[in-house]
């Protein structure tokens, strides 16, 4: 009871003593203070009493709880006894378990040692067995068996053998080890020697026999080297035989022009066949990843043999000499010695064929070796894979065959360029225009030649070679050939002075002027003038066909290249290069289009403008300041426009027949512009009455209707100003213009400036200039 009550007591007394100390009370002298303290103390007393009451209220519950606790007491003693007993049992079990497990551990160790002992005994037995076996096998010349024993010995754990030496039975093991080592050295020497002998005599079964034994003795490199040596010797004899055959072959044979390409093909196919046949053996006995080693040996022989073929080719075909002649004739332009391009044809074909075979072969090697490395490097690190990749790249890039072929192509390109240039020149000189044909023979000839040359380069399978030939082709088309077309156009279209005389419209002055300018052409007869005309028109057609042909050529080459290079690995880069070169052809095509435009403008200036101008100015002689009577007469007898239409029709008929539809259309469009421009100039020199304006409107309508019928271009735009002029000339009053002008213009867009509108209004004799001035436009 006390114990429970004491904290409560302390709790309540502690604040009482600390809030107001006895000393503080004693020291108080002031009444006010005393009263305040007293009141505080009274309040505290009430508080304490309230707490006391609560505590005494709890007394009965606490007593009941105490009784219950006293009743539990004896039970607790029972539990304590049980716990002690349990603890003793657990301790006992624990020590027992530890005892057992230590015994198991000992057993385990013993077992392991036992196994090691057995392994060692086995190894020693193996060693002994091997020692005996090797000796018997060697005695029986059973190299396979002996090698198998040595292989077993080599695959024994070296540390075990070392350990055995330190053991008690060292002398016995030492002896057999010594024997084995001796046997190993002997066997290696013997087998290597035998293999060498077999290689030397070309004894295939023996070669294969010992070739299979060497990897068992750990002599992979030697084995592959010897085997390669054997294969090389086979290759060499076969290649020499083929080359001899080639040299002695009949010149009239169908394949004679390609005999060196064929010989090279035989050589490369031979190697491919060797790989096909022997790769399985190598893989079985030497494991994957060894093909590279074998092929580095073989490639040396391949290089040597290919070199021989190429040398013979160069010698027999006079390749270098031809190249030098071509080179010098291209450098100096005119040369004493010149090769007929046709002579180069076969040799160019042969070279590209050789190149394509070599490319094919190198791709085959790459594919095979990569596949072999892939199998071997399945679990290898990235750096190993990369190193193998680099080795392979180096082998293919640095081999003599690659270099030799690249050299051949290096000579080929200038020769092919020469062939193209010369043949194109020839096509130009032999150019003929058949009657009834719009363009002349050279256009198609030139494109046939260019296509042939690039296609031949394409057969080489070498993307750089193709690109170079595309570049040269562009150069030939853009400079040489374009120059030919430009020169022809520069000769000009002869002005038709005689026609002018017939028509009797040209003034003497203009006739004199044009004859001065065209002195040369005028001295020619009518016939040659006609020829010059035809030549000019044909050239225009030629330029257009060329520009189209270039686009076609580009498209064809694109698909050809895509077809050829799509199967190759890493071809995206080659494809991008070729595409870039081909895209330059588009520029060439558009340059020709510009030339065509210039040529047409020239034609329009010389042949159309001088004729059309007087026809249009004859408008001046037809009065448009007319009354009813004249208007009706004009209605019956057209004074001007019908004749103009007939004249234009006649003028253009000649061109319509001689020009391709597209060019003719462009020319008509030029003519239409010219007519519009000249007519506008003329109008401003005339005067009009109201009916004259109406007359002009009618004339303009029939002219526009005619011109619309002869061209596919829209001409409304070209005649927009004239139509608006006609509208103005047709007005009743000056002020009527305001119905069409400014906010009232509706869908009409005025092409005339306000000043021009006034100018046109002034052409009407019946409009007063004050009214026109007063207009607010």
């Amino acid at each position, binding site marked *: 009871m006390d114990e429970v009550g004491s904290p409560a007591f302390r709790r309540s007394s502690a604040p009482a003593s600390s809030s107001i100390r006895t000393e503080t009370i004693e020291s108080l002298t002031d009444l006010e203070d005393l009263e305040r303290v007293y009141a505080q103390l009274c309040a505290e007393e009430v508080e304490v009493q309230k707490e006391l009451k609560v505590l005494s209220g709890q007394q009965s519950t606490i007593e009941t709880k105490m009784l219950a606790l006293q009743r539990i007491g004896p039970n607790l003693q029972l539990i304590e006894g049980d716990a002690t007993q349990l603890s003793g049992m657990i301790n006992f079990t624990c020590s027992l378990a530890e005892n057992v497990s230590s015994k198991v551990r000992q057993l385990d160790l013993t077992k392991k040692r036992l196994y090691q002992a057995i392994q060692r005994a086995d190894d020693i037995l193996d060693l002994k067995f091997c020692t005996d076996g090797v000796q018997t096998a060697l005695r029986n010349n059973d190299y396979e068996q002996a090698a198998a024993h040595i292989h077993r010995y080599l695959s024994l754990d070296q540390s075990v053998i070392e350990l055995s030496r330190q053991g008690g039975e060292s002398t016995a093991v030492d002896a057999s080890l010594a024997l084995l080592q001796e046997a190993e050295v002997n066997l290696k020497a013997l087998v290597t020697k035998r293999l060498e002998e077999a290689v030397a005599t070309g004894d295939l079964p023996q070669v294969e026999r010992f070739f299979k034994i060497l990897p068992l003795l750990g002599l992979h490199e030697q084995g592959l080297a010897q085997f390669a040596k054997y294969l090389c010797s086979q290759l060499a004899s076969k290649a020499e035989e083929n080359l001899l055959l080639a040299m002695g072959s009949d010149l009239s044979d169908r394949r004679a022009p390609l005999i060196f390409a064929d010989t090279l093909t035989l050589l490369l196919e031979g190697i491919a066949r060797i790989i096909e046949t022997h790769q399985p053996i190598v893989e079985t006995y030497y494991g994957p990843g060894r093909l590279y080693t074998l092929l580095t040996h073989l490639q040396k022989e391949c290089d040597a043999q290919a070199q021989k073929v190429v040398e013979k080719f160069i010698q027999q075909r006079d390749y270098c000499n031809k190249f030098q002649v071509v080179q010098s004739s291209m*450098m100096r332009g005119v040369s004493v010695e010149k090769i007929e391009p046709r002579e180069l044809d076969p040799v160019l074909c042969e070279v590209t064929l050789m190149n394509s075979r070599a490319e094919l072969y190198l791709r085959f090697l790459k594919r095979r070796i990569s596949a072999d490395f892939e199998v071997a490097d399945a679990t290898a690190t990235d750096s190993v894979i990369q190193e193998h990749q680099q080795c392979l*790249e*180096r082998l293919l*890039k640095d081999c003599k065959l690659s*270099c030799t072929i*690249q*050299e051949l*192509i*290096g*000579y080929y*390109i*200038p020769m092919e*360029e020469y062939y193209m240039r010369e043949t194109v020149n020839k096509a130009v000189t032999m150019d003929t225009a058949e009657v009834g044909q719009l363009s002349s023979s050279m256009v198609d000839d030139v494109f046939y030649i260019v296509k042939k040359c690039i296609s031949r380069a394409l057969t080489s399978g*070498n*993307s*750089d*070679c193709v*690109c*170079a*030939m595309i*570049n*040269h082709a*562009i*150069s030939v088309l853009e400079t040489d050939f374009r120059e030919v077309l*430009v020169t022809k*156009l*520069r*000769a*000009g279209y002869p*002005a038709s002075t005689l026609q002018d005389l017939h028509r009797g419209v040209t003034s003497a002055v203009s006739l004199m002027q*044009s004859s001065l*300018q*065209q002195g040369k052409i005028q001295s020619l007869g009518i016939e040659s003038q006609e020829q010059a005309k035809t030549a000019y028109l044909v050239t225009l057609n030629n330029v257009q066909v060329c520009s189209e042909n270039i686009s076609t050529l580009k498209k064809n080459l694109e698909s050809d290249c895509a077809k050829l290079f799509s199967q190759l690995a890493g071809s995206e*880069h080659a494809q*991008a*290069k070729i595409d*870039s070169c081909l895209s*330059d052809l588009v520029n060439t095509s558009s340059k020709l289009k510009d*030339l065509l*435009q*210039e*040529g047409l*403008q*020239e034609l*329009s*200036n*010389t042949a159309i*403008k*001088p004729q059309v101008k007087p026809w249009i100015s004859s408008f001046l002689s037809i009065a448009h300041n007319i009354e009813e009577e004249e208007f009706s007469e004009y209605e019956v007898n057209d004074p001007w426009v019908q004749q103009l239409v007939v004249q234009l029709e006649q003028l253009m008929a000649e061109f319509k027949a001689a020009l391709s539809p597209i060019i003719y259309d462009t020319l008509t469009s*030029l003519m239409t*512009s010219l007519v519009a*421009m000249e007519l506008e100039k003329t109008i401003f020199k005339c005067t009009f009455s109201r009916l004259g304006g109406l007359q002009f409107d009618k004339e303009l309508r029939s002219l526009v209707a005619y011109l619309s019928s002869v061209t596919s271009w829209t001409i409304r735009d070209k005649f927009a100003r004239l139509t608006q002029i006609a509208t103005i000339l047709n007005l009743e009053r000056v002020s009527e213009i305001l119905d069409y002008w400014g906010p009232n213009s509706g869908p009409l867009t005025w092409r005339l400036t306000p000043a021009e509108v006034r100018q046109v209004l002034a052409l009407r004799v019946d409009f007063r200039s004050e009214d026109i001035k007063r207009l607010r436009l």
Partner: protein
Amino acid sequence: MEDYDYLFKIVLIGNAGVGKTCLVRRFTQGLFPPGQGATIGVDFMIKTVEIKGVKVKLQIWDTAGQERFRSITQSYYRSANALILTYDITCEDSFRCLPEWLREIEQYANNQVVTILVGNKIDLAEKREVHRQRAEEFAEAHSMLYLETSAKESDNVEKLFLDLACVLIREAKQNTLDNNESAPMPGEGKNINYLSCCNIN
């Protein structure tokens, strides 16, 4: 429409092993591949740069220096807007061959081509065999620009290509200006450049 204002072809030429491929790699990919093998034929890279808001697509043709590829590389001269003639400052031989290269340029390139002489490998300063002044004089005598670079340390590589692009833009602008001056009067059609000698009106 492709996304550039100008397209220029730049062709790198010079002896084998002077570092043409490394210059191109450094510029286009930011790499310096050690142990770079000899280039076979011609290599081709594209990089688009922006200079003062003008997008310039540079088509860079990296040619093989070895003699046997000469006839392939020569075919690229004619359409080139610029040639980068490269030599190795640590190799007197590569400098001595320059006149030969200039003869090639003379023979095959168009006459508006911009040529810049580049001395590469200045990171190997201690092995220098060709003095800067000598090269500068040579370049000036043949009216070429001159720059020394290090593809390894990336010195002046950006500058080389960007300067070149600037020069080419300037020339291209000059050309269009010239063309515009001779442009036809409106309504008269296009002027005749090739046929003007016999123009009759």
